[in-house]
């Protein structure tokens, strides 16, 4: 099965060929590297930009204004912060012009911890992104969703923020991407650039098929009756694993992958919480003014009388960065054990 980086690459190839994507660009996005996470290798419209994040976002806005369909990359989400006013403008252009202009652009950026990236290569962006109206925000947790969400993003006529959990970029999926060959080694031979001289290399793309994960739709990745766990990105597979493990202890947890943070699938979450009466939100952004806090607020306001226990949020610690040492990173953002104990304690909490 493809990994997430390969899935993103295949989706972008599909989008270049079929969805009118004209430019895939950013720092080191073009040949020879094809992105520091190789997510843009071999793409025919990929090009290297100057090392200038504001220039990258501005270029994407301008291209979108002129009817092109750009996919811009910020190398690490930590470096998107110096473009924040441009992101605000991209988000408000349609509204500010009373619907006169729309910006069909995608901004992709790797987020979160998990590669021992230290202080400036580990931050999340979901809390900040969800604070900028006018954007659609997606975050896949597996290669198939990564493929389908990228295709949806490229079909959008509004700005889409595509957050890539960097810890998951190298993990193979459990489901095949439509058109992906059966043999993983073959896939790698076809689309992964060789080491060394790549000047003559051209990828051999599989016959990919259209497959879109609709923006705004979450997914129940594990059905359960006792407690709802809502997550996305890096922490989603950990939640799924925790729920599977806890099943042996008799805890029956339902796990929801949000997949889209804005607009999000409240109906799915609501239905689940009404059923279980208990909900844990899990993400790894810093916990103060966290997107999960919004979800907790909404849960309290709308579902208070359905609840058996206070809604909980398990998120990253509110510290200025993620330290390099293994112990520091582990202590800063939710890990497998933290999630398991949080679900266990919530499941057993009695009014």
């Amino acid at each position, binding site marked *: 099965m493809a990994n997430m980086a390969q899935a993103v690459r295949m989706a972008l190839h599909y989008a270049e060929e079929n969805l009118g994507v004209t430019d895939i660009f950013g720092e080191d996005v073009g040949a020879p590297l094809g992105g520091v996470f190789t997510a843009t290798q071999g793409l025919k419209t990929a090009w290297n930009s100057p090392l200038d994040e504001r220039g990258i976002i501005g*270029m994407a806005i301008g*291209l979108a204004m002129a009817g092109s369909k750009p996919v811009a990359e910020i190398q690490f989400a930590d470096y998107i912060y110096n473009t924040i006013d441009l992101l605000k403008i991209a988000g408000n252009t349609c509204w500010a012009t009373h619907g006169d202009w729309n910006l069909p652009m995608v901004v992709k950026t790797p987020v979160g911890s998990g590669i021992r990236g230290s202080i400036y290569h580990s931050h999340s962006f979901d809390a900040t992104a969800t604070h900028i109206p006018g954007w659609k925000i997606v975050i896949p947790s597996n290669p198939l969703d990564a493929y389908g969400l990228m295709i949806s993003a490229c079909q959008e006529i509004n700005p889409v923020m595509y957050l890539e959990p960097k810890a998951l970029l190298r993990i193979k999926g459990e489901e095949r991407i439509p058109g992906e060959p059966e043999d993983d080694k073959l896939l790698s031979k076809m689309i992964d650039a060789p080491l060394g001289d790549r000047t003559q290399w051209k990828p051999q793309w599989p016959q990919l098929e259209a497959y879109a994960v609709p923006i705004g739709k979450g997914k129940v990745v594990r059905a359960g009756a006792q407690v709802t766990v809502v997550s996305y990105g890096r922490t989603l597979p950990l939640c799924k694993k925790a729920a599977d493990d806890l099943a042996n202890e008799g805890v029956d947890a339902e796990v929801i992958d949000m997949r889209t943070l804005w607009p999000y699938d409240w109906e799915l979450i609501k239905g689940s919480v009404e059923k279980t009466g208990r909900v844990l939100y899990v993400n790894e952004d810093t916990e103060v003014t966290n997107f999960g806090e919004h979800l907790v607020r909404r849960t309290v306001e709308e579902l208070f009388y359905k609840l058996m226990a206070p809604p909980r949020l398990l998120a990253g610690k509110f510290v200025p960065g993620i330290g390099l040492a293994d112990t520091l990173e582990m202590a800063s953002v939710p890990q497998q054990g933290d999630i398991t104990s949080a679900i266990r304690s919530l499941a057993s909490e009695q009014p």
Partner: protein
Amino acid sequence: MPKPRLLNRDEDSLPLERELLVRMHDLMVKARVLEERLIQMYKQGHGYFWIGGPGEEAFNVPLGLLMKKGQGPAYDYLHAHYRQSATMMALGEEPIGALRQMKNVAADPYSGGRNFAGHFSKREWNIAPVSSPIEVQYVMAPGTALAQKRHGGDGITIVTGGDAGTAEGDFASCLVWSSRPGNELPLLIIVTNNKWGISTPAAGQHGETHVADRGKAFNIRTKTIDGNDPINAYLELKEAMEYVRKERKPFLMEALVSRLYGHSSASGANFVGNEQDCLAAFEERLEKQGILTRKEMDELRNRYTEDMAAMARQVREEPLPAPETIWNHIFAERK
């Protein structure tokens, strides 16, 4: 500074057709009267904030006249700032739109009552939305220019902004992105230098001799021109635009202009006597050369003044946007 090539032409006969001179004058008057009306509306409480371009008509009118107007990459894009009502008038815009934006009524054609005066936007003519943050337009302009370069034809992108704003990194970004060897962009980069930030004089802002000199390090063709002389501005803009259209390369133009009513309503919006008034100077020349009489020019101004007073009265009666419209246009819908 060497004298700009086309300064002091008033000794000679004027080097543009009479018809064009009369048209430019008409538009300059129209734009000036519009701004004065907007200021008055602000002062009478029919608007919350005024910012605009009285004093820059001699540059902004020729710019609008020379633009290739239309929608899409075959035509010129303008990434303007908030002092360009005269460019809009020269493109053929009706002044009532600006009045509606000042009064923030529902019929405001640029923002539906959401944005400040002078914040124009018109997709039909490739007028990119003006937004308040200074200089952001300079990072977006390379995007439309790249699309145009690819598209072929002779459409160009024009970006304008103030001198103080060139201290922002976005101005440097524009120079970098438009001049990469082999990837040069058809971009006319304009800085209208009125020698002020809000209250900070140019000398307190930056040390280069001319803002335009910054382009030299990027092998960008540059020029500093007198933007208070509409004839000079017309000829210089024409030459620069022809270069950008044909060569598909950037050009950095610095136009020296006046700021006749201060920065905005934030600084009072009162007439500043010691700035050169480009309209008065032009009228003197037109009269001297027998192109228009004082009487004709006075009548023109009176007519526009009356027209716009009537429009302002009309706009005052128009409804504000309905509160529930805050939810409109957050996202575009596929039609």
